[in-house]
């Protein structure tokens, strides 16, 4: 499956990328980071136009995210539960909704590119929690354009090392996510110790 997607992007370029990222944004698990790095490599090879690729990747992702938001908003929890079963992922929707409310706009922004596995669930939860659509599309667009520009640029710079860069970025993403968790937990731990001492 992944091979066929990579072949399609390699052969048909930006239109194929647009379709694949839109499908992934709804929640289908696809290797989007690798696809964007490969697209960046093809830009470096002169086979694709940088702005077309960034535009296609951003537009596809935003479209898929909007579909996820709409499913959550108008389909409600029943539709989201059904969708999560289709993709074989049980999701604790109230917990994701609580996270979506607590993180707000910056949460939407970061789950577009840094904590991207959470992105589709934040879309659905933002919809079910009736997060304001204008704010959602603002943070969503900002995050998707940032993510597309970063990964495509990485692919463009390291155009002859796409597989290796995908492995590095995968580890870096998890390291940053763990660091963010450590900072938040450390802050909470410190606050708890201060309260206990007072």
């Amino acid at each position, binding site marked *: 499956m992944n091979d066929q997607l990579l072949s399609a992007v390699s052969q048909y370029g930006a239109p194929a990328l647009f379709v694949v990222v839109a499908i992934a944004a709804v929640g289908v698990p696809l290797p989007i980071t690798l696809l964007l790095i490969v697209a960046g490599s*093809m830009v470096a090879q002169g086979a694709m136009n940088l702005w077309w690729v960034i535009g296609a990747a951003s537009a596809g992702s935003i479209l898929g995210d909007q579909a996820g938001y709409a499913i959550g908003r108008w389909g409600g929890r029943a539709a989201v539960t059904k969708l999560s079963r289709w993709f074989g992922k049980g999701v604790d929707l109230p917990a994701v909704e609580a996270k979506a409310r607590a993180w707000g706009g910056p949460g939407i922004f970061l789950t577009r590119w840094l904590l991207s596995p959470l992105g589709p669930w934040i879309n659905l939860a933002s919809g079910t929690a009736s997060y304001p659509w204008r704010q959602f599309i603002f943070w969503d667009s900002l995050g998707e354009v940032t993510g597309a520009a970063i990964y495509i640029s990485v692919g463009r710079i390291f155009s002859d090392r796409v597989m290796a860069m995908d492995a590095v970025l995968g580890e870096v993403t998890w390291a940053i996510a763990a660091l963010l968790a450590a900072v938040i*937990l450390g802050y909470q731990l410190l606050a708890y110790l201060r309260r206990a001492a007072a």
Partner: protein
Amino acid sequence: MLVLGVAFLVAITGTFVFAYRAGRHARQIRSANEPIRAWMSIPFIAHTRHVPAPLLFQAIGVQPEPHDRRSIRHLAHDLKRPVPDLMAQLQRAVDTAAHTPSDQPR
């Protein structure tokens, strides 16, 4: 308190483990060659392995065409040949080219 402390330690450990693994992969970037995969096109392999694309096209008996972005899987289907055979042949052509000085543009 205990749960918070344990979670904090797990997060710190995770940060170091993933950062170490990222560093290890990053060190391999310079030394390891990009593997040939079935989804790659001939111009893509030529670019990642720094060999002329026409040489790779010739190695598998296909007329060199700069805009031919068919994947190896697609080419194997068109040539009615098994994908692993074609990949092995391309790997041999890449290895040969790497040991042969060439004046051809890359």
